[in-house]
């Protein structure tokens, strides 16, 4: 918006100031509730980073958020605001479950590539219709993806209650997967190199998430398609004038975004729960919005922001345990404030900072 600002101000200072504002307001909320914000912050950090157990959970949550954050970020580069990562992740989880239950897999490394395909294809399929309608019929992708989130949750309820449920069981969930599909836990992986850590849900998917972040970087900044997406997101008329096909870019960006959201299923369904339960996504798709906004849609930023939200989720759970007055809903409040201050109210910080820099230059 203001090209005159130095890069470090744009990429580091303004996001950090926005984040500080969000946490300041969150601190006020804690004060209003009648607890000590500093003590709450200490408990949150100890709970999330104070032990290998806490770190394991923090990184497990962060892995999920890297996938959903990248999903939102990819679409954002093409100028599309995909609020549908939640529903796309639901379908991705379904894809993982269908693959894992299809045959008695002998080993996880045989099942994994097929599961990645399953998650990617169903996640992408759920993003296809909104993308296609946006490109071809001009139906706003924000509205259609919201609608598809609700349709996805109704579909999953139907499938889990009527089709995939174990006969005779009350729980709306699939049968447990065969052990041949269980992804190695981080505990097992680190034991190979002689490191001992607590048993947590953290699994191989964490490394896949880093790989996904790297591949996203390659896609966006090192390929022709990524260049076209960024050009299209920056200025649609200019991109079209340059011969970029808007339909192809919009649909492709949404397909990639949906596939990436679906990858979340690897971490949660295949890596930890070993069955598909009702609403396994539990809002992680929406956290992806906050993560992408905070990470400025850059894969490295997304990874950092995902770790921050991992800390919030794990630390928030421990905090709710130690300070019952601050329930886990505090996490949602902080998430909302981060979206508000880094997204919608961005100019609250940007305009004064830009003014300061202009003044310094002219002085």
């Amino acid at each position, binding site marked *: 918006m203001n090209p005159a600002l130095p890069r470090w101000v744009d990429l580091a200072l303004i996001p950090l100031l926005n984040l500080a504002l969000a946490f300041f307001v969150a601190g006020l*909320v804690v004060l209003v*509730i*009648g607890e000590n914000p500093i003590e709450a912050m200490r408990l949150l950090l100890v709970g999330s980073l104070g032990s290998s157990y806490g770190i394991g959970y923090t990184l497990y949550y962060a892995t999920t958020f890297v996938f959903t954050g990248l999903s939102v970020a990819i679409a954002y580069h093409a100028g599309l*605001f995909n*609020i549908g990562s939640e529903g796309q992740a639901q379908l991705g989880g379904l894809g993982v479950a269908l693959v894992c239950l299809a045959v008695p897999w002998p080993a996880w490394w045989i099942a994994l590539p097929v599961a990645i395909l399953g998650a990617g294809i169903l996640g992408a399929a759920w993003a296809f*219709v909104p993308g296609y*309608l946006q490109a071809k*019929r*001009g*139906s*706003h992708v*924000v*509205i*259609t993806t*919201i*609608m*598809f989130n*609700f*349709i996805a949750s*109704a*579909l999953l*309820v*139907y499938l889990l*209650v*009527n089709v995939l449920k174990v006969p005779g069981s009350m729980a709306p969930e699939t049968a447990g997967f065969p052990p041949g599909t269980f992804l190695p836990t981080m505990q097992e992986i680190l034991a190979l190199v002689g490191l001992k850590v607590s048993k947590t849900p953290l699994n191989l998917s964490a490394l896949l998430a880093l790989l996904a972040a790297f591949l996203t970087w390659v896609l966006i900044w090192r390929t022709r398609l990524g260049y076209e997406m960024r050009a299209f997101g920056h200025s649609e008329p200019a991109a079209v004038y340059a011969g970029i096909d808007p339909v192809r870019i919009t649909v492709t960006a949404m397909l990639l975004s949906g596939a990436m959201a679906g990858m979340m299923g690897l971490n949660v369904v295949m890596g930890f729960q070993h069955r598909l339960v009702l609403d396994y996504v539990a809002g992680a798709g*929406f956290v992806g*919005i906050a993560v992408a*906004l905070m990470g400025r849609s850059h894969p490295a930023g997304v990874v950092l922001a995902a770790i921050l939200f991992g800390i919030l989720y794990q630390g928030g759970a421990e905090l709710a345990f130690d300070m019952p*007055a*601050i*329930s886990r*809903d*505090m*996490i*949602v*409040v*902080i*998430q*909302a*404030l981060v*979206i*508000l201050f880094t*997204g*919608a*109210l*961005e*100019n*609250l910080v940007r*305009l004064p900072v830009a003014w300061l820099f202009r003044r310094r230059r002219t002085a």
Partner: protein
Amino acid sequence: MDLEAILQLAGASLRLGTPLLLACLAGLFSERAGIFDIGLEGKMLAAAFAAGAFAAVTGSAWVGLLAGIAASVVLALVHGLASITLKGNQLISGVAINFLASGLTALIGQNWFGMGGQTPQLRPGARFLDLAWPLADALAAVPVAGPIYRHVISGHNILVYAALAAVPLTWWVLYRTRFGLRLRAVGENPAAVDTAGVSVVRLRYGAVVIAGVLCGIAGAYLSTAMAAGFNREMTAGKGFIALAALIFAKWRPWPALGACLLFGLLEAVGIRYQAITLPGLGVVPVQFMQALPYILTVVILAGFVGKAIPPKAGGRPYAKER
């Protein structure tokens, strides 16, 4: 299905359609002025909580209603600050408002009442009760007209009638007043309004605040009229269904009434009949009924059944040229 059952279903549709209608009209004012509002859900939820909490503490439904409106207007002003004054992204602001309401209502509710996010059960005096119209029972024996009078026209609470009255009122304001003309103009071509010497900022804030008031009434209806207290996440997507209805109605007041009653009917049918057997098609699962408003909206948005064209300047902040 006899007449009695059909009329009961009609009455239920009206009751279930009321919060949708109020929220839908809220969105109509906001979006007609060029401010996208996907935060209807959050504003309703905040209002439902505030209304439930204040009605429980004071014992007055009217105080609850005012508190609900106040809570909703505060969030509306945040949306206005973000999208009008600071020229931020209106969609992101809406998303943030939804989460803010979701988190804060649960957090504060637990903190104030310690009931897992619920507010205490409201006594009858602290609720908007159903009003029986004169002679509703006496006339019930009259064929056809009697049951219609009893089940559909009479026997709702005052907010239902207020919501119905809001439809012609909205139409009149939008199409028969100077404010309405300017409001519609600011959603299509703000530069023209600005050139005419009318403040775009003031008009848009006006629209956003009206949306806040209407969402406030919708939320209060949920916790103090339809139910007797607030539950966590009690809006349960109604704000988004209202948004769907708004698109369905192509941003016009009378069709909005129709769309909201239709979606209310779908909900009423879903509650009353868990699974419906259609001749030739087999059993329609209840989940399909629940998803139907969203599916219909996508179909409408796709332009297969008449094209839904939003206000032209919607979603874009207005920057005065220098």
